[in-house]
């Protein structure tokens, strides 16, 4: 079974890009109603369908509001009760498939989290954040900030 067909079997998938990005070893996916996807569930799904594929990472484009919760900066996903802890970019999901290493972050991507925090003025700030979505033991879902765009 092809990878694309296997991914389409995941509950709630709306669409998958027709062609993968073979240079970066990625493909695009959309969930119905903008549902939040747990990287662990996706990883398990890919393993379970036995297509010889493994999830290296999951990047999400999420809209919500920047807020602070205790010591952590968080993104409150608009229209839901979901709260994603925010962090600086660690490792990119995109890969240099020729050299078989993750693509190195650009200078702008390296500084994105710091620049976002500089915008924080003590009240919720509407923003769209793009970055790897990871689950950290004991801390829940964390969204690493690779890019952001302030929303009006």
């Amino acid at each position: 079974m092809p990878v694309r067909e296997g991914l389409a079997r995941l509950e709630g998938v709306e669409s998958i890009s027709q062609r993968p990005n073979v240079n970066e070893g990625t493909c695009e996916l959309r969930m119905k109603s903008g549902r939040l996807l747990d990287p662990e569930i996706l990883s398990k799904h890919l393993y379970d369908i036995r297509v010889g594929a493994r999830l290296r990472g999951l990047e999400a484009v999420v809209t919500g509001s920047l807020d602070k919760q205790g010591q952590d900066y968080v993104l409150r996903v608009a229209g839901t009760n979901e709260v994603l802890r925010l962090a600086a970019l660690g490792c990119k999901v995109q890969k240099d498939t020729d050299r078989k290493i993750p693509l190195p972050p650009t200078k702008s991507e390296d500084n994105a989290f710091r620049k976002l925090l500089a915008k924080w003025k003590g009240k919720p700030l509407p923003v769209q954040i793009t970055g790897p979505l990871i689950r950290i033991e004991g801390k829940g879902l964390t969204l690493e900030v690779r890019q952001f765009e302030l929303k009006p």
Partner: protein
Amino acid sequence: MKRNLIMKHLASGIIALTSVWLSCAVRAEVRSYTLGIDVNCPTGLGE
């Protein structure tokens, strides 16, 4: 007669407002995902 007309317009307004509210409620907040996938098969992710 006039009262019926007003009620009809009011009902249409409520339906329109409800539709807007519902469309906002299901608005996509996670726009898209990029999946980084490593494949073992020779045909790769191209399949």
